[in-house]
């Protein structure tokens, strides 16, 4: 933008901060440099109005709290002012270690838009007198990544606005349109989810942000619903992936020096003449079978039969499925 425009906007902010009375557009034009025009010339006046509208929009975009009102009961025309209390960042008395933490947090974002927002937020804290040590680290730092649906969904949840989006679950062939009153967004084990009231299912639902296809469209008015009081967002997501209790015990025979992956989670290992006997804890026989079959003849299940049978069944299926193929492929 031109230097004159920036200058005009800085002067406009200073002027509106300094006034207690609401100033009309005409009063502002007569005061702030850069708005000079002939109000009697329709074309000139219209140009001023357009310029002033653009400037107001720019200030609001920046977050400047522009108040509108009338100076007195005698005035019909609306005026403008900025309440210093609304404008100013409240005092944030950060200790050096706290300031360092904010500085670290601000550089964790891997998402361009939020990285920019974090650093402009940090710049304001610095302007408030906070000194941030750029060298500080906390030993272990998370890389904060988000899916594209993060920004529109958090904004919708904040504004309590219904949204519509297309959602693709891998085992379905086509995305389905969903309508949701979002309550909040959750990061659970490195993945992002939105929790809310699904308007079509009339029930609480979680959606994985990476499965949202295309744009998230706000479809309702702001403040059109209330999330339940004291809603625990995490618990809605965590419900689907709680810790697994491995109470089962399987005994497998492993060739010496092989199957390092299985050895790592064996609760017991005994060396015998024909190999090592490992005792593996498990919750689901079929899941354990999936872990074991990959080792082929290096690992043999001795007990219990449910795991043994599951492994044999899988091996048969794999052999059958690949039988024709290997011949057709002419590998030998």
């Amino acid at each position, binding site marked *: *933008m031109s230097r004159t425009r920036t200058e005009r906007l*800085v*002067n406009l*902010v*200073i002027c509106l901060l*300094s006034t207690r009375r609401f100033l009309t557009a005409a009063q502002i034009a007569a005061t702030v*440099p850069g708005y000079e025009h002939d109000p009697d010339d329709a074309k000139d006046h219209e140009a001023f109005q357009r310029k002033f509208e653009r400037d107001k929009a*720019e200030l609001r975009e920046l*977050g*400047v709290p522009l108040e509108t009102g009338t100076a007195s009961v005698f005035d019909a025309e609306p005026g403008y002012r900025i309440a210093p209390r609304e*404008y100013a*960042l*409240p005092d*944030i008395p*950060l200790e050096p*270690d*706290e300031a360092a*933490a*904010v500085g670290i*947090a*601000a550089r964790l974002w891997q998402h361009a838009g*939020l990285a920019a927002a*974090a650093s402009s*937020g940090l*710049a*304001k804290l610095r*302007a408030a007198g906070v000194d941030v040590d750029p060298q500080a*680290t*906390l030993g*272990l730092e*998370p890389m904060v990544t988000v899916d594209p649906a993060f*920004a529109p969904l*958090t904004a919708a949840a*904040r504004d309590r606005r219904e949204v519509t989006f297309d959602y693709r679950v*891998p*085992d379905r062939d086509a995305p389905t349109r969903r309508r949701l009153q979002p309550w909040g*967004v959750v*990061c659970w084990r*490195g*993945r992002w989810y939105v929790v809310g009231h699904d308007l079509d299912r009339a029930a609480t639902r979680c959606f994985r942000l990476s499965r949202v296809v295309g744009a998230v469209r706000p479809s309702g008015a702001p403040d059109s619903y209330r999330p339940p009081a004291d809603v625990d*967002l995490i618990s809605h997501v965590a419900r689907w992936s709680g810790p697994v209790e491995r109470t089962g015990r399987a005994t497998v025979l492993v060739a010496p020096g092989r*199957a390092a*992956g299985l*050895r790592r989670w064996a609760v017991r290992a005994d060396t015998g003449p*024909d190999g090592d*006997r490992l005792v593996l804890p498990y919750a689901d026989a079929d899941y354990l079978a*999936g872990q074991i*079959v*990959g080792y*082929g*003849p290096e690992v043999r299940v*001795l007990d219990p039969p449910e795991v043994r049978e599951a*492994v044999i069944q*899988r091996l048969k299926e*794999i052999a059958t*499925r*690949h*039988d024709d*193929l290997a011949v057709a492929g002419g*590998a030998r």
Partner: protein
Amino acid sequence: MTRPAVARGSRASADRLARLLNLVPYLLARPGIEIAEAAGDLGVTERQLREDLELLWVCGLPGYGPGDLIDMAFDGDRVTITYDAGIDRPLRLTPDEALALVVALRMLAETPGVANREAVERALAKIEDAAGDLAGAPVEVRLPGDSARVRELRAAVERGRALRITYYTAARDETTERVIDPLRMLMVGGRAYVEAWCRRAEAVRLFRADRVDAVVELDDPAVVPPQARPQDLTDGVFRPSPDLPLITLRIGRGERWITEYYPCERVVADGEQWLVSLRVTDLGWARRFVVGLGPEVTVVAPAELAEQVRAQAVAALEAYATPPTPADPAVAARTQ
């Protein structure tokens, strides 16, 4: 279409206006600061900062007389604001700024093994307080629970010594000992990693904390060769390179989840079934992976992998066809 140009121009202008409104309180809080230091701190060039100051110098309160304009005193390369014309405080945080800071701080506070978590939590409380309603950011974060291994590794990395680790490499299904010179610890996608110079591989490597089976701190300090650089992890931890073997699988509906967990180069729907191509670091790993997936998976290519999968399954079945060793107490007890 002029719209994008207008939007770009207005973005740059908004940035400059935001910077100018910030500049007065910033300098007010640091009387006599060197211009070079301020420029470095604010992330602008010295020349840009001088231009900003020149512009502010002609702005001020209505009247715009000498007593109304923003004023500053220069002393060599140092600057002091002597009159602020009422912009003595920075503008409050926007909703996006509050969200970005609060979510990142929550992430930090939730990171297992983070040092000085207490300071992070205090900072979070203060930022939330200052942001007021905006901080009611409807975002919650929970990372995997605190693990003793992560804390042990972080403390060791902080002491700056070389480490001997016992490490499980899933790609080759082997556990090896290696000496590493740690660079940093980080958390990606909910998992903790040590990034280090590996003396065995003579390269920078990422080690997953949950695959480190043992750590011994050595006496010699961690020395990272000058050519070692932290990796760019913007696109995730595993970025398949085009020279790795490409495998193609035909998968059923129940296995489509693999397209969400592994970076796939190509996914083609073939009716009910999908043809999925992905790069793997090791064919041995691919064999274990494919066989472990479930019944509805067939290797399409390479033929070598399909043959290995078949041969392995046949060999395993033959082993099961011979009766179990009677010496095994568990089996012996069952057959009595």
